[in-house]
């Protein structure tokens, strides 16, 4: 197979044809922050946090396929600030109260905010009024925390291939809907997967609060993305 050569922030890298920039970077031990991206799911480029620059053009690294000779800018100050701005936008456009959230410590949005050194958002809080849908027997959907990454829409299908979660409305009001009928029949294992796939605390299992103690959670000891170098070195 032909190998592609490219660079990230000046570091010479190699990739397989067809890999996305995020995948190619990862296999070279370079972390590009992502949020909506989820391995195994079709990338959608909705959060835009993974935006990189190549040849002066901005692109989502999760959807753009790596091309021969690309000189990618990733960890440069102006891009890092743009990414931080996106994270801030997600914070001000939802109602994120980390200390009271079951996902704290396992939350990718929170972890990204730490990793990208977000302080107080530059934007005013919008305090949207969002609803919680708790009708499904096994899970609840708290839209206050939803970042519209579409992982649940893409990843959670019933046995007939029907979508259990779907995008609803448009614009700033855009929501995620859970299908009442399909959610009623959702197996425990699928419900757990929905909650685990959710990067934030928007999809939570009922009756399972705080099973994992604070201090032992995913990002309690090392920042998000710490695994990237380790894997590349394997």
């Amino acid at each position: 197979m032909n190998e592609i050569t490219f660079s990230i922030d000046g570091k010479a890298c190699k990739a397989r044809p067809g890999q996305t920039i995020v995948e190619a970077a990862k296999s070279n031990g370079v972390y590009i922050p992502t949020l909506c991206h989820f391995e195994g799911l079709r990338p959608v480029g909705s959060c835009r946090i993974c935006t990189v620059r190549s040849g002066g053009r901005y692109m989502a690294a999760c959807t753009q396929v790596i091309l021969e000779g690309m000189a990618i800018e990733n960890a440069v100050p102006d891009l890092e600030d743009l990414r931080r701005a996106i994270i801030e936008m997600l914070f001000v456009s939802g109602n994120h109260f980390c200390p009271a959230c079951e996902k704290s410590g396992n939350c990718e949005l929170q972890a990204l905010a730490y990793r990208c050194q977000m302080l107080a958002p530059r934007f005013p809080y919008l305090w949207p009024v969002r609803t919680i849908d708790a009708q499904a027997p096994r899970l609840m959907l708290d839209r206050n925390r939803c970042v519209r990454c579409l992982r649940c829409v893409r990843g959670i299908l019933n046995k007939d291939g029907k979508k259990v979660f779907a995008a609803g409305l448009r614009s700033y009001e855009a929501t995620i809907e859970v299908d009442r009928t399909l959610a009623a029949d959702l197996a425990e294992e699928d419900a757990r997967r929905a909650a685990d796939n959710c990067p934030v605390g928007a999809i939570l299992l009922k009756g399972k609060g705080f099973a994992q103690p604070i201090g032992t959670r995913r990002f309690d000891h090392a920042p998000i993305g710490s695994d990237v170098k380790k894997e590349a070195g394997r």
Partner: protein
Amino acid sequence: MPEKDIVLKHPKDPSALLDVIRDVQARSGRVSDAAVGRIAAHLKLSEAEVRGAVTFYHFFSLDPRGASTVYLNDSITSRMKGRQAVAGVFEEEAGCRFGEVSPDGSIGLFPTSCIGMSDQEPSAVIDGVIFTNLTPLKVRHLVRALRAGRPAQDLVGEYGDGANQSDLVRAMVVNNIRRRGPVLFGPHQLGEAVRKAVSMTPEAVIEEIKRARLLGRGGAGFPTGLKWDFCRREQQAPHYVVCNADEGEPGTFKDRVVLTELPDLVFEGMAVAGYAVGAEEGVLYLRAEYAYLRPHLEAVLAGLRRANFLGRNIAGSPTFHFDITIKLGAGAYVCGEESALLESAEGKRGEPRNRPPFPVQIGYRDRPTTVNNVETLCTAARILVHGAAWFCSMGTPKSSGTKLLSVSGDCERPGVYELEFGLTVDELLDMAGAKDAFAVQVGGASGTMIGRRDFGRRISFEDLPTGGSIMIFGPWRDLLEIAAGFMDFFIEESCGWCTPCRVGNVLLKKKLEKVLSGRGTRQDLAELESWGKLVKTMSRCGLGQTSPHPILSTLQNFRELYDAIIDQNKEHVPEFDLTEATLESARLTHRRPILGETAHE
């Protein structure tokens, strides 16, 4: 027909989703829970997905929209031409506010984005029928008649000109063709272009279009010949031609006039494109606001089939077969973006796709597709007949040919002008009768607002590009309020997929409101600029990549308007007034706020 049968008559194919919803909405004035269940079962989709499609589009709804449904255009030109008074009478007569249905269920009032009637505002779509030049008096009669059960079509008084009078259109819409140029409006013999095409090789057709340096007329200006070439070279089969008849850019309406008066040329252009790219199927994606033209368009298609300019062995060619179907939109500006249009044509929510891959690679039904604007296709057909040299003899070096402009706003002669590229804004204003123009919005809400010092600039891809929308503002207009109105439009029309567009436009508008309220500082203007650039840079499609333009272009060209209303002496003024914000709690706790500090009474 019972709702159940309406659903069942459609194929059991998810791509029929929007068609089913449209029929149910038309019959029942809503898509009820029961209907959602039926549609989901029939198309093997989840109910949440069906709801998601219903709630994406302006003209679909889960809740009742009234026996008669009024969609009153809420564009800037509509507001300039007296929308407020008209809206007031609608509310008074119906007995409900916009966004609601009258208590007796007879009338529903809803706002909608630009419906393509900027030259005859205020206008509305009522039960699919267009009403233009509305006045308070007309509205009073209209609502009373609707309430009495008279069909909207019967309330159309006088028909407009040209094909608007045909039995298949019967619309009060007028064409307002002010300037007929040689390309679009020159004499054309039916079938001329198709005949010429099949006498050439597809490669030669593409070569001719390339030589003419035809750039896409929808706004983005991509070279048409190159697009066709890319599509032709794709190995996957079949290939498709899609005509983008979803002009939704505020202030544009030229495609409406083309579809009314020159539909055969549009379809010929599609056939030429089909021949060039190797497609046998074409789709005209027609915006829902123009659904009133559909019977007319279907009749023209039938005529072209009879004349063998569509169908099998077109114009005697042994190998070329091509036909066209019409797909209707359902109200969504973002569907003018070509990949969102394809999603919508496939029966889904009109959310743009990630690019690459581009539609020429993976397009309609995941096959190579060329998506071209109405005017582009007409122009291509005419280039084929008259040659690239003829076309290049008009316009400027980088913008050959002519352009249709939709002129509206504060001028004596609003309407459609076919003019050579390269004319100055001043010359256009002269023609339109707008001597006292103070500002011109070139290219619609996503374009640029320019002032008098730029009126010598030329309308062309190299200087002032436009998909055709030209809105003229007199000196008495509040340009910053207009910019705020455009931001409302983008907030409303963002599909909500990506963070910067979904959230950023709201933040920009909020910041603009702060400045307009007189609480702004230089810091706020700097933030408007940097946030605007942020949204442009980080957004996923053309909508978010251009939505900050109303703010950025007024900041650039009308900075003095901002400087006049900000507090020049303060570094920072908070978003809110602390005293005001604490007033209620102070009252409840019997405390009294003093200059931001709270003291006992």
